[in-house]
Protein backbone atom coordinates (compact mmCIF):
# COMPACT_ATOMS: atom_id res chain seq x y z
CA UNK A 1 0.00 0.00 0.00
CA UNK A 2 2.73 2.38 0.88
CA UNK A 3 3.87 2.35 -2.72
CA UNK A 4 1.04 4.67 -3.49
CA UNK A 5 1.97 6.98 -0.68
CA UNK A 6 5.41 7.11 -2.17
CA UNK A 7 3.91 8.39 -5.35
CA UNK A 8 2.34 11.18 -3.42
CA UNK A 9 5.61 11.94 -1.71
CA UNK A 10 7.35 12.09 -5.05
CA UNK A 11 4.57 14.30 -6.35
CA UNK A 12 4.93 16.64 -3.41
CA UNK A 13 8.65 16.84 -3.97
CA UNK A 14 8.49 17.39 -7.68
CA UNK A 15 5.52 19.69 -7.93
CA UNK A 16 7.35 22.77 -6.59
CA UNK A 17 10.33 21.93 -8.77
CA UNK A 18 8.57 22.64 -12.04
CA UNK A 19 7.62 26.28 -11.42
CA UNK A 20 10.83 26.61 -9.44
CA UNK A 21 12.84 25.37 -12.38
CA UNK A 22 11.12 27.79 -14.72
CA UNK A 23 11.78 30.77 -12.48
CA UNK A 24 15.29 29.56 -11.75
CA UNK A 25 16.10 29.06 -15.39
CA UNK A 26 14.85 32.52 -16.10
CA UNK A 27 17.03 33.88 -13.35
CA UNK A 28 20.06 31.96 -14.56
CA UNK A 29 19.73 32.54 -18.24
CA UNK A 30 18.54 36.10 -18.42
CA UNK A 31 21.08 38.89 -18.82
CA UNK A 32 21.00 41.25 -15.86
CA UNK A 33 21.24 44.88 -16.79
CA UNK A 34 18.95 46.63 -14.32
CA UNK A 35 18.14 50.27 -14.62
CA UNK A 36 15.61 52.49 -12.90
CA UNK A 37 12.90 52.14 -15.49
CA UNK A 38 13.20 48.39 -15.60
CA UNK A 39 12.81 48.22 -11.82
CA UNK A 40 9.47 49.97 -11.98
CA UNK A 41 6.51 47.95 -10.81
CA UNK A 42 4.70 48.34 -14.07
CA UNK A 43 7.21 48.24 -16.81
CA UNK A 44 4.99 50.05 -19.27
CA UNK A 45 6.40 53.51 -19.50
CA UNK A 46 3.92 55.13 -17.18
CA UNK A 47 5.53 56.29 -14.01
CA UNK A 48 4.02 54.91 -10.82
CA UNK A 49 3.12 57.72 -8.45
CA UNK A 50 2.72 57.35 -4.72
CA UNK A 51 1.94 54.31 -2.66
CA UNK A 52 -0.21 51.47 -3.84
CA UNK A 53 -1.78 51.25 -0.39
CA UNK A 54 -4.49 53.78 -0.92
CA UNK A 55 -8.23 53.42 -0.69
CA UNK A 56 -9.95 52.65 -3.94
CA UNK A 57 -13.47 53.56 -4.65
CA UNK A 58 -15.55 50.48 -3.93
CA UNK A 59 -17.29 50.89 -7.27
CA UNK A 60 -14.20 49.68 -9.04
CA UNK A 61 -14.88 46.31 -7.48
CA UNK A 62 -18.52 46.32 -8.35
CA UNK A 63 -17.70 47.11 -11.94
CA UNK A 64 -15.03 44.45 -11.96
CA UNK A 65 -17.38 41.86 -10.49
CA UNK A 66 -20.14 42.59 -12.94
CA UNK A 67 -17.63 42.48 -15.73
CA UNK A 68 -16.27 39.12 -14.65
CA UNK A 69 -19.75 37.67 -14.44
CA UNK A 70 -20.51 38.64 -18.01
CA UNK A 71 -17.08 37.56 -19.10
CA UNK A 72 -17.83 34.09 -17.85
CA UNK A 73 -21.22 34.23 -19.49
CA UNK A 74 -19.42 34.72 -22.78
CA UNK A 75 -17.18 31.77 -22.06
CA UNK A 76 -20.26 29.61 -21.79
CA UNK A 77 -21.92 31.10 -24.82
CA UNK A 78 -19.13 30.35 -27.25
CA UNK A 79 -19.02 26.55 -26.99
CA UNK A 80 -22.80 26.37 -27.11
CA UNK A 81 -22.79 28.46 -30.24
CA UNK A 82 -20.08 26.29 -31.78
CA UNK A 83 -21.90 23.04 -31.09
CA UNK A 84 -25.38 24.39 -31.72
CA UNK A 85 -26.06 22.07 -34.62
CA UNK A 86 -25.43 19.06 -32.45
CA UNK A 87 -27.23 20.14 -29.32
CA UNK A 88 -30.52 21.45 -30.60
CA UNK A 89 -33.35 23.07 -28.74
CA UNK A 90 -32.27 21.77 -25.35
CA UNK A 91 -29.17 23.92 -25.41
CA UNK A 92 -31.12 26.99 -26.43
CA UNK A 93 -33.48 26.68 -23.52
CA UNK A 94 -30.63 26.10 -21.11
CA UNK A 95 -28.57 29.02 -22.27
CA UNK A 96 -31.52 31.39 -22.42
CA UNK A 97 -32.34 30.56 -18.82
CA UNK A 98 -28.73 31.11 -17.93
CA UNK A 99 -28.60 34.47 -19.64
CA UNK A 100 -31.92 35.52 -18.10
CA UNK A 101 -30.65 34.84 -14.62
CA UNK A 102 -27.64 36.99 -15.30
CA UNK A 103 -29.85 39.68 -16.78
CA UNK A 104 -31.84 39.69 -13.58
CA UNK A 105 -28.62 40.31 -11.72
CA UNK A 106 -27.75 43.11 -14.08
CA UNK A 107 -31.17 44.60 -13.61
CA UNK A 108 -30.73 44.46 -9.87
CA UNK A 109 -27.38 46.15 -10.06
CA UNK A 110 -28.81 48.79 -12.34
CA UNK A 111 -31.90 49.38 -10.26
CA UNK A 112 -29.77 49.53 -7.17
CA UNK A 113 -27.89 52.41 -8.71
CA UNK A 114 -24.57 50.65 -8.48
CA UNK A 115 -23.75 51.40 -12.07
CA UNK A 116 -24.01 55.14 -11.65
CA UNK A 117 -20.61 56.57 -11.11
CA UNK A 118 -20.72 58.82 -8.14
Amino acid at each position, binding site marked *: *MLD*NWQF*IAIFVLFAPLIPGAAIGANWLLSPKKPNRIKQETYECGVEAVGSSWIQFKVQYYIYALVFVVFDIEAVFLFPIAA*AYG*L*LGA*FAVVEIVLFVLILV*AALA*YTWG*DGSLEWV
Partner: protein
Amino acid sequence: MDFQPPIINLLIVAPLLITMGAGLFLMLLNIFCKRDGVYYWLTLAAIAAALVQNVAMWGHEYGTFIARGSYPMVVSDNFSVFLNSILLLSGIGTLLISRNYLHRTKLERPEFYMLMLFSLSGMMMMGMANDLILVFVALELLSIPLYIMAGLAVSRDDSKESAMKYFLLGAFSSGIFVYGIALIYGATGATALPAVYAVLEAGSPLAMAGTAFLMVGFAFKIGAVPFHMWTPDVYEGAPTVVTAFMSVGAKVAGFAALLRVFTVALPAMSDAWMGALALIAALTLIIGNVVALMQTNIKRMLGYSSIAHAGYLLIGVAAAGQHSEAVGSVLLYMLAYLFTTMGAFGVVIALEHKLGEGIMLEDYKGLAKRNPWLSAAMLVFMLSLTGVPPTGGFSGKFYIFRSAVEANLWWLAIIAIMTSVVSGYYYLRVVFYMYMFDGDRTEPVYAGTALKTGLLIALVGTLWLGFFPAGWFELAYKAVIGTTQLLAGG
Protein backbone atom coordinates in the same frame (compact mmCIF):
# COMPACT_ATOMS: atom_id res chain seq x y z
CA MET B 1 -21.59 10.81 -31.63
CA ASP B 2 -25.12 11.76 -31.07
CA PHE B 3 -25.87 14.12 -28.22
CA GLN B 4 -28.64 13.12 -25.90
CA PRO B 5 -29.89 15.66 -23.43
CA PRO B 6 -29.93 14.54 -19.81
CA ILE B 7 -33.17 13.45 -18.21
CA ILE B 8 -34.51 16.36 -16.27
CA ASN B 9 -37.50 16.39 -13.98
CA LEU B 10 -37.84 19.87 -12.64
CA LEU B 11 -40.60 18.88 -10.26
CA ILE B 12 -38.06 17.14 -8.10
CA VAL B 13 -36.05 20.26 -7.57
CA ALA B 14 -39.20 22.35 -7.24
CA PRO B 15 -38.48 23.41 -3.65
CA LEU B 16 -35.14 24.68 -4.82
CA LEU B 17 -36.66 26.39 -7.80
CA ILE B 18 -39.28 28.06 -5.68
CA THR B 19 -36.83 29.54 -3.22
CA MET B 20 -34.33 30.48 -5.87
CA GLY B 21 -36.99 31.90 -8.16
CA ALA B 22 -38.45 33.89 -5.32
CA GLY B 23 -35.01 35.26 -4.64
CA LEU B 24 -34.61 36.32 -8.25
CA PHE B 25 -38.06 37.81 -8.25
CA LEU B 26 -37.27 39.85 -5.18
CA MET B 27 -34.13 41.06 -6.90
CA LEU B 28 -36.20 42.43 -9.74
CA LEU B 29 -38.89 43.71 -7.44
CA ASN B 30 -36.27 45.69 -5.63
CA ILE B 31 -36.12 48.01 -8.63
CA PHE B 32 -39.74 49.04 -8.31
CA CYS B 33 -40.87 48.48 -4.81
CA LYS B 34 -39.23 49.67 -1.67
CA ARG B 35 -41.85 48.67 0.85
CA ASP B 36 -40.37 46.29 3.41
CA GLY B 37 -43.46 44.36 4.40
CA VAL B 38 -43.87 43.03 0.87
CA TYR B 39 -40.55 41.24 0.98
CA TYR B 40 -41.27 39.68 4.33
CA TRP B 41 -44.60 38.23 3.28
CA LEU B 42 -43.38 37.14 -0.14
CA THR B 43 -40.43 35.33 1.40
CA LEU B 44 -42.66 33.68 3.95
CA ALA B 45 -45.04 32.59 1.22
CA ALA B 46 -42.23 31.24 -0.95
CA ILE B 47 -40.73 29.22 1.88
CA ALA B 48 -44.14 27.90 2.86
CA ALA B 49 -44.82 26.88 -0.75
CA ALA B 50 -41.44 25.19 -0.94
CA LEU B 51 -42.24 23.37 2.29
CA VAL B 52 -45.53 22.09 0.96
CA GLN B 53 -43.97 20.91 -2.27
CA ASN B 54 -41.14 19.35 -0.31
CA VAL B 55 -43.39 17.41 2.04
CA ALA B 56 -45.41 16.20 -0.92
CA MET B 57 -42.36 14.29 -2.12
CA TRP B 58 -42.17 12.23 1.06
CA GLY B 59 -42.13 8.52 0.49
CA HIS B 60 -40.62 8.52 -2.98
CA GLU B 61 -37.20 8.24 -4.38
CA TYR B 62 -36.40 10.39 -7.36
CA GLY B 63 -33.35 11.25 -9.35
CA THR B 64 -32.96 14.01 -11.83
CA PHE B 65 -30.35 15.57 -14.10
CA ILE B 66 -29.29 12.16 -15.26
CA ALA B 67 -26.81 12.17 -18.08
CA ARG B 68 -27.08 9.04 -20.22
CA GLY B 69 -25.32 6.12 -18.71
CA SER B 70 -24.59 7.94 -15.53
CA TYR B 71 -25.98 8.55 -12.09
CA PRO B 72 -28.39 11.35 -11.25
CA MET B 73 -26.79 14.57 -10.15
CA VAL B 74 -29.64 15.38 -7.81
CA VAL B 75 -31.70 12.95 -5.81
CA SER B 76 -34.73 13.40 -3.67
CA ASP B 77 -35.55 10.83 -1.06
CA ASN B 78 -37.00 10.75 2.42
CA PHE B 79 -33.65 11.73 3.82
CA SER B 80 -33.48 14.92 1.80
CA VAL B 81 -37.17 15.68 2.35
CA PHE B 82 -36.69 15.43 6.08
CA LEU B 83 -33.64 17.64 6.06
CA ASN B 84 -35.15 20.15 3.68
CA SER B 85 -38.13 20.44 5.97
CA ILE B 86 -35.81 21.23 8.86
CA LEU B 87 -34.03 23.80 6.74
CA LEU B 88 -37.21 25.43 5.50
CA LEU B 89 -38.55 25.51 9.04
CA SER B 90 -35.37 27.20 10.14
CA GLY B 91 -36.01 29.75 7.38
CA ILE B 92 -39.54 30.36 8.64
CA GLY B 93 -38.25 30.59 12.19
CA THR B 94 -35.63 33.11 11.20
CA LEU B 95 -38.23 35.21 9.44
CA LEU B 96 -40.57 35.17 12.42
CA ILE B 97 -37.98 36.22 14.92
CA SER B 98 -36.44 38.76 12.58
CA ARG B 99 -39.58 40.76 11.81
CA ASN B 100 -39.40 43.32 14.55
CA TYR B 101 -35.66 43.09 15.04
CA LEU B 102 -34.73 44.14 11.53
CA HIS B 103 -37.15 46.98 11.74
CA ARG B 104 -35.91 48.46 14.97
CA THR B 105 -32.24 47.99 14.14
CA LYS B 106 -32.72 49.57 10.70
CA LEU B 107 -31.38 46.48 9.01
CA GLU B 108 -34.50 45.71 7.08
CA ARG B 109 -33.38 45.72 3.47
CA PRO B 110 -34.66 43.56 0.63
CA GLU B 111 -31.19 42.06 0.39
CA PHE B 112 -31.68 40.22 3.65
CA TYR B 113 -34.59 38.28 2.23
CA MET B 114 -32.99 37.56 -1.14
CA LEU B 115 -29.75 36.39 0.41
CA MET B 116 -31.65 34.20 2.80
CA LEU B 117 -33.59 32.59 -0.02
CA PHE B 118 -30.43 31.96 -2.03
CA SER B 119 -28.63 30.54 0.95
CA LEU B 120 -31.61 28.35 1.72
CA SER B 121 -31.48 26.95 -1.81
CA GLY B 122 -27.83 26.12 -1.33
CA MET B 123 -28.56 24.42 1.96
CA MET B 124 -31.27 22.28 0.44
CA MET B 125 -29.01 21.37 -2.44
CA MET B 126 -26.45 20.10 0.07
CA GLY B 127 -28.74 17.31 1.12
CA MET B 128 -29.91 16.50 -2.40
CA ALA B 129 -26.62 16.58 -4.25
CA ASN B 130 -25.51 13.21 -5.46
CA ASP B 131 -22.30 14.38 -7.01
CA LEU B 132 -19.25 15.85 -5.38
CA ILE B 133 -19.12 18.72 -7.84
CA LEU B 134 -22.69 19.62 -7.01
CA VAL B 135 -21.94 19.37 -3.31
CA PHE B 136 -19.26 21.96 -3.83
CA VAL B 137 -21.59 24.23 -5.81
CA ALA B 138 -24.17 23.90 -3.07
CA LEU B 139 -21.57 24.65 -0.43
CA GLU B 140 -20.65 27.87 -2.18
CA LEU B 141 -24.25 28.78 -2.85
CA LEU B 142 -25.06 28.48 0.81
CA SER B 143 -21.89 30.16 2.02
CA ILE B 144 -21.55 33.26 -0.09
CA PRO B 145 -24.91 34.78 0.89
CA LEU B 146 -24.09 34.00 4.51
CA TYR B 147 -20.82 35.90 4.25
CA ILE B 148 -22.74 38.95 3.11
CA MET B 149 -25.48 38.47 5.67
CA ALA B 150 -22.95 38.34 8.48
CA GLY B 151 -21.81 41.80 7.43
CA LEU B 152 -25.28 43.21 7.03
CA ALA B 153 -24.91 45.61 9.92
CA VAL B 154 -22.46 47.77 8.01
CA SER B 155 -22.52 50.44 10.66
CA ARG B 156 -20.87 48.14 13.15
CA ASP B 157 -17.25 47.14 12.99
CA ASP B 158 -17.74 43.77 14.62
CA SER B 159 -20.28 42.83 12.00
CA LYS B 160 -17.89 43.71 9.18
CA GLU B 161 -15.09 41.94 10.96
CA SER B 162 -17.15 38.81 11.35
CA ALA B 163 -18.12 38.87 7.68
CA MET B 164 -14.51 39.23 6.64
CA LYS B 165 -13.31 36.47 8.93
CA TYR B 166 -16.05 34.16 7.85
CA PHE B 167 -15.35 34.86 4.21
CA LEU B 168 -11.60 34.40 4.36
CA LEU B 169 -11.72 31.25 6.40
CA GLY B 170 -14.65 29.93 4.43
CA ALA B 171 -12.78 30.44 1.22
CA PHE B 172 -9.75 28.73 2.70
CA SER B 173 -11.68 25.68 3.79
CA SER B 174 -13.53 25.56 0.48
CA GLY B 175 -10.17 25.38 -1.20
CA ILE B 176 -9.20 22.40 0.89
CA PHE B 177 -12.58 20.86 0.14
CA VAL B 178 -12.11 21.19 -3.61
CA TYR B 179 -8.70 19.66 -3.29
CA GLY B 180 -10.34 16.73 -1.54
CA ILE B 181 -12.77 16.33 -4.45
CA ALA B 182 -9.86 16.40 -6.85
CA LEU B 183 -8.05 13.69 -4.94
CA ILE B 184 -11.14 11.51 -4.80
CA TYR B 185 -11.56 11.99 -8.51
CA GLY B 186 -7.92 11.09 -8.94
CA ALA B 187 -8.42 7.88 -7.01
CA THR B 188 -11.65 6.79 -8.62
CA GLY B 189 -12.12 8.75 -11.81
CA ALA B 190 -15.62 9.67 -10.67
CA THR B 191 -17.41 12.39 -8.81
CA ALA B 192 -20.89 10.91 -8.63
CA LEU B 193 -21.32 9.45 -5.16
CA PRO B 194 -22.56 6.00 -6.23
CA ALA B 195 -19.82 5.84 -8.84
CA VAL B 196 -17.20 6.61 -6.24
CA TYR B 197 -18.68 3.89 -4.06
CA ALA B 198 -18.56 1.41 -6.92
CA VAL B 199 -14.94 2.06 -7.79
CA LEU B 200 -13.35 2.91 -4.49
CA GLU B 201 -11.32 0.32 -2.69
CA ALA B 202 -10.26 0.54 0.91
CA GLY B 203 -6.83 1.85 1.59
CA SER B 204 -6.27 3.86 -1.52
CA PRO B 205 -4.00 6.62 -0.26
CA LEU B 206 -5.27 9.21 -2.69
CA ALA B 207 -8.82 8.58 -1.56
CA MET B 208 -7.69 8.65 2.05
CA ALA B 209 -6.16 12.07 1.67
CA GLY B 210 -9.20 13.17 -0.28
CA THR B 211 -11.52 11.96 2.46
CA ALA B 212 -9.50 13.85 5.03
CA PHE B 213 -9.78 17.06 3.03
CA LEU B 214 -13.51 16.61 2.47
CA MET B 215 -13.82 16.17 6.19
CA VAL B 216 -12.04 19.46 6.76
CA GLY B 217 -14.52 21.26 4.52
CA PHE B 218 -17.52 19.80 6.30
CA ALA B 219 -16.01 20.18 9.75
CA PHE B 220 -15.48 23.84 9.04
CA LYS B 221 -19.10 24.34 8.05
CA ILE B 222 -20.45 22.60 11.10
CA GLY B 223 -17.94 24.24 13.39
CA ALA B 224 -16.11 21.21 14.72
CA VAL B 225 -12.82 21.46 16.61
CA PRO B 226 -10.15 22.32 15.46
CA PHE B 227 -11.95 24.03 12.59
CA HIS B 228 -14.28 25.91 14.91
CA MET B 229 -12.41 29.07 15.76
CA TRP B 230 -14.40 31.31 13.49
CA THR B 231 -17.69 30.32 15.12
CA PRO B 232 -17.76 32.44 18.29
CA ASP B 233 -16.36 35.51 16.55
CA VAL B 234 -18.77 35.31 13.68
CA TYR B 235 -21.74 34.44 15.87
CA GLU B 236 -21.00 37.38 18.10
CA GLY B 237 -20.44 39.89 15.33
CA ALA B 238 -23.20 38.97 12.92
CA PRO B 239 -26.69 40.38 13.45
CA THR B 240 -28.50 38.02 15.78
CA VAL B 241 -31.05 36.86 13.24
CA VAL B 242 -28.26 35.89 10.90
CA THR B 243 -26.56 34.05 13.74
CA ALA B 244 -29.74 32.14 14.39
CA PHE B 245 -30.10 31.25 10.71
CA MET B 246 -26.46 30.26 10.46
CA SER B 247 -26.37 28.19 13.59
CA VAL B 248 -29.24 26.03 12.43
CA GLY B 249 -29.26 26.17 8.65
CA ALA B 250 -25.58 26.03 7.84
CA LYS B 251 -24.99 23.35 10.42
CA VAL B 252 -27.85 21.14 9.35
CA ALA B 253 -26.84 21.52 5.70
CA GLY B 254 -23.25 20.65 6.52
CA PHE B 255 -24.38 17.52 8.29
CA ALA B 256 -26.73 16.62 5.47
CA ALA B 257 -23.94 16.56 2.92
CA LEU B 258 -21.52 14.97 5.35
CA LEU B 259 -23.92 12.13 6.01
CA ARG B 260 -24.73 11.53 2.37
CA VAL B 261 -21.20 11.76 1.06
CA PHE B 262 -19.66 9.62 3.74
CA THR B 263 -22.29 6.93 3.97
CA VAL B 264 -23.05 6.69 0.28
CA ALA B 265 -19.70 7.24 -1.36
CA LEU B 266 -17.13 6.27 1.20
CA PRO B 267 -18.31 3.28 3.20
CA ALA B 268 -15.29 1.39 2.00
CA MET B 269 -13.23 3.47 4.35
CA SER B 270 -15.74 3.67 7.16
CA ASP B 271 -13.27 2.32 9.70
CA ALA B 272 -10.91 5.17 9.09
CA TRP B 273 -13.41 8.01 8.97
CA MET B 274 -15.41 6.65 11.86
CA GLY B 275 -12.32 6.87 14.00
CA ALA B 276 -11.42 10.33 12.77
CA LEU B 277 -14.94 11.64 13.28
CA ALA B 278 -15.10 10.09 16.72
CA LEU B 279 -11.89 11.87 17.68
CA ILE B 280 -13.13 15.15 16.28
CA ALA B 281 -16.40 14.66 18.12
CA ALA B 282 -14.61 14.09 21.41
CA LEU B 283 -12.45 17.17 20.96
CA THR B 284 -15.44 19.23 19.91
CA LEU B 285 -17.47 18.17 22.91
CA ILE B 286 -14.74 18.94 25.37
CA ILE B 287 -13.56 22.25 23.95
CA GLY B 288 -17.03 23.51 23.06
CA ASN B 289 -18.56 22.78 26.43
CA VAL B 290 -15.66 23.79 28.59
CA VAL B 291 -14.94 27.08 26.89
CA ALA B 292 -18.61 27.98 26.93
CA LEU B 293 -18.41 27.98 30.71
CA MET B 294 -16.58 31.26 30.87
CA GLN B 295 -18.61 33.24 28.39
CA THR B 296 -20.56 36.25 29.54
CA ASN B 297 -21.95 37.19 26.17
CA ILE B 298 -25.02 35.18 25.33
CA LYS B 299 -24.35 35.09 21.62
CA ARG B 300 -20.81 33.93 22.16
CA MET B 301 -22.01 31.38 24.66
CA LEU B 302 -24.53 30.08 22.15
CA GLY B 303 -21.72 30.02 19.61
CA TYR B 304 -19.66 27.66 21.76
CA SER B 305 -22.81 25.78 22.60
CA SER B 306 -23.45 25.25 18.90
CA ILE B 307 -19.93 23.88 18.61
CA ALA B 308 -20.72 21.49 21.42
CA HIS B 309 -23.92 20.39 19.72
CA ALA B 310 -22.00 19.73 16.54
CA GLY B 311 -20.01 17.37 18.72
CA TYR B 312 -23.11 15.47 19.80
CA LEU B 313 -24.28 15.25 16.20
CA LEU B 314 -20.86 14.02 15.10
CA ILE B 315 -21.18 11.13 17.51
CA GLY B 316 -24.20 10.04 15.54
CA VAL B 317 -22.39 10.43 12.25
CA ALA B 318 -19.44 8.45 13.53
CA ALA B 319 -21.82 5.73 14.62
CA ALA B 320 -23.52 5.85 11.22
CA GLY B 321 -20.52 4.05 9.80
CA GLN B 322 -21.66 1.00 11.73
CA HIS B 323 -25.40 1.00 11.59
CA SER B 324 -27.89 3.11 9.77
CA GLU B 325 -30.15 3.68 12.77
CA ALA B 326 -27.65 6.25 13.95
CA VAL B 327 -28.56 8.43 10.98
CA GLY B 328 -32.12 8.46 12.28
CA SER B 329 -30.97 9.68 15.66
CA VAL B 330 -28.90 12.41 14.03
CA LEU B 331 -31.99 13.59 12.16
CA LEU B 332 -34.05 13.59 15.33
CA TYR B 333 -31.37 15.50 17.16
CA MET B 334 -31.32 18.10 14.40
CA LEU B 335 -35.04 18.57 14.70
CA ALA B 336 -34.74 19.13 18.43
CA TYR B 337 -31.78 21.41 17.86
CA LEU B 338 -33.78 23.41 15.34
CA PHE B 339 -36.63 24.18 17.73
CA THR B 340 -34.48 24.76 20.76
CA THR B 341 -31.86 26.95 19.13
CA MET B 342 -34.38 29.01 17.20
CA GLY B 343 -36.29 29.56 20.41
CA ALA B 344 -33.21 30.53 22.39
CA PHE B 345 -32.18 33.00 19.74
CA GLY B 346 -35.71 34.34 19.65
CA VAL B 347 -35.42 35.24 23.32
CA VAL B 348 -31.99 36.77 22.75
CA ILE B 349 -33.46 38.89 19.98
CA ALA B 350 -36.34 40.03 22.13
CA LEU B 351 -33.86 41.36 24.66
CA GLU B 352 -31.45 42.93 22.20
CA HIS B 353 -32.91 46.38 22.51
CA LYS B 354 -30.25 47.98 20.32
CA LEU B 355 -27.99 46.39 17.80
CA GLY B 356 -25.34 44.56 19.81
CA GLU B 357 -26.69 45.69 23.18
CA GLY B 358 -28.57 43.68 25.72
CA ILE B 359 -26.82 40.46 24.85
CA MET B 360 -24.73 40.07 27.99
CA LEU B 361 -25.64 37.61 30.70
CA GLU B 362 -26.07 40.58 33.02
CA ASP B 363 -28.97 41.77 30.92
CA TYR B 364 -30.94 38.68 31.87
CA LYS B 365 -31.05 39.64 35.50
CA GLY B 366 -34.58 39.70 36.78
CA LEU B 367 -36.14 38.74 33.48
CA ALA B 368 -38.44 36.39 35.34
CA LYS B 369 -40.17 39.38 36.83
CA ARG B 370 -40.09 41.65 33.84
CA ASN B 371 -41.44 39.06 31.49
CA PRO B 372 -42.37 35.73 33.04
CA TRP B 373 -43.49 34.23 29.74
CA LEU B 374 -40.26 34.94 27.98
CA SER B 375 -38.16 33.67 30.85
CA ALA B 376 -40.26 30.52 31.18
CA ALA B 377 -39.69 29.86 27.48
CA MET B 378 -35.97 30.49 27.88
CA LEU B 379 -35.95 28.12 30.83
CA VAL B 380 -37.35 25.36 28.66
CA PHE B 381 -34.88 26.07 25.87
CA MET B 382 -31.94 26.06 28.24
CA LEU B 383 -33.10 22.81 29.81
CA SER B 384 -33.47 21.35 26.36
CA LEU B 385 -29.98 22.44 25.35
CA THR B 386 -28.67 20.87 28.54
CA GLY B 387 -30.55 17.71 27.72
CA VAL B 388 -32.84 17.53 30.71
CA PRO B 389 -35.92 15.36 30.24
CA PRO B 390 -38.63 15.76 29.15
CA THR B 391 -37.46 18.14 26.47
CA GLY B 392 -36.46 17.62 22.87
CA GLY B 393 -32.81 18.00 23.77
CA PHE B 394 -33.02 14.99 26.02
CA SER B 395 -34.73 12.82 23.44
CA GLY B 396 -32.14 13.75 20.85
CA LYS B 397 -29.25 13.03 23.17
CA PHE B 398 -30.80 9.81 24.32
CA TYR B 399 -31.03 8.40 20.80
CA ILE B 400 -27.58 9.65 19.88
CA PHE B 401 -25.97 8.14 22.95
CA ARG B 402 -27.79 4.94 22.35
CA SER B 403 -26.55 4.62 18.82
CA ALA B 404 -23.03 5.44 20.00
CA VAL B 405 -23.24 2.54 22.39
CA GLU B 406 -24.62 0.27 19.68
CA ALA B 407 -21.66 1.20 17.53
CA ASN B 408 -19.32 0.32 20.39
CA LEU B 409 -18.31 3.93 20.83
CA TRP B 410 -19.01 3.75 24.53
CA TRP B 411 -15.98 5.85 25.46
CA LEU B 412 -17.40 8.60 23.31
CA ALA B 413 -20.79 8.21 24.96
CA ILE B 414 -19.19 8.64 28.36
CA ILE B 415 -17.35 11.77 27.27
CA ALA B 416 -20.63 13.06 25.87
CA ILE B 417 -22.47 12.40 29.11
CA MET B 418 -19.77 14.04 31.18
CA THR B 419 -19.65 17.09 28.97
CA SER B 420 -23.41 17.40 28.97
CA VAL B 421 -23.29 17.36 32.76
CA VAL B 422 -20.76 20.17 32.51
CA SER B 423 -22.94 22.03 30.03
CA GLY B 424 -25.64 22.31 32.67
CA TYR B 425 -23.52 24.86 34.45
CA TYR B 426 -23.49 27.44 31.72
CA TYR B 427 -27.00 26.89 30.42
CA LEU B 428 -28.47 26.99 33.87
CA ARG B 429 -26.48 30.10 34.59
CA VAL B 430 -28.83 31.92 32.28
CA VAL B 431 -31.72 30.55 34.32
CA PHE B 432 -29.90 31.60 37.45
CA TYR B 433 -29.61 35.15 36.19
CA MET B 434 -33.24 35.25 35.11
CA TYR B 435 -34.73 33.86 38.27
CA MET B 436 -32.32 34.65 41.05
CA PHE B 437 -31.48 38.27 40.57
CA ASP B 438 -33.33 41.51 40.75
CA GLY B 439 -32.83 43.32 37.53
CA ASP B 440 -32.24 46.99 37.13
CA ARG B 441 -32.81 46.93 33.39
CA THR B 442 -35.48 49.24 32.12
CA GLU B 443 -35.07 48.70 28.40
CA PRO B 444 -38.21 47.35 26.78
CA VAL B 445 -38.49 43.73 25.76
CA TYR B 446 -39.35 43.49 22.11
CA ALA B 447 -41.74 40.62 21.75
CA GLY B 448 -43.97 41.35 18.80
CA THR B 449 -46.60 39.06 17.36
CA ALA B 450 -44.27 37.43 14.87
CA LEU B 451 -41.64 36.73 17.50
CA LYS B 452 -44.24 35.39 19.89
CA THR B 453 -45.56 33.08 17.20
CA GLY B 454 -42.04 31.87 16.51
CA LEU B 455 -41.33 31.29 20.19
CA LEU B 456 -44.59 29.46 20.64
CA ILE B 457 -43.82 27.13 17.75
CA ALA B 458 -40.33 26.55 19.12
CA LEU B 459 -41.70 25.89 22.58
CA VAL B 460 -44.35 23.49 21.41
CA GLY B 461 -41.80 21.75 19.19
CA THR B 462 -39.29 21.39 21.99
CA LEU B 463 -41.80 19.98 24.43
CA TRP B 464 -43.52 17.86 21.81
CA LEU B 465 -40.25 16.19 20.96
CA GLY B 466 -39.60 15.76 24.65
CA PHE B 467 -42.87 14.06 25.44
CA PHE B 468 -43.53 12.19 22.21
CA PRO B 469 -40.24 11.55 20.46
CA ALA B 470 -41.21 8.03 19.42
CA GLY B 471 -43.31 9.09 16.47
CA TRP B 472 -40.70 11.54 15.30
CA PHE B 473 -37.98 8.98 15.57
CA GLU B 474 -40.01 6.58 13.51
CA LEU B 475 -40.33 9.31 10.92
CA ALA B 476 -36.62 10.03 11.05
CA TYR B 477 -35.89 6.37 10.81
CA LYS B 478 -38.14 6.07 7.79
CA ALA B 479 -36.13 8.89 6.29
CA VAL B 480 -33.17 6.58 6.49
CA ILE B 481 -34.63 3.24 5.55
CA GLY B 482 -36.55 4.88 2.75
CA THR B 483 -33.18 5.70 1.32
CA THR B 484 -31.66 2.62 -0.11
CA GLN B 485 -28.41 4.31 -0.84
CA LEU B 486 -27.86 5.23 2.75
CA LEU B 487 -28.55 1.68 3.73
CA ALA B 488 -26.14 0.36 1.17
CA GLY B 489 -23.52 2.31 2.95
CA GLY B 490 -24.59 1.21 6.38
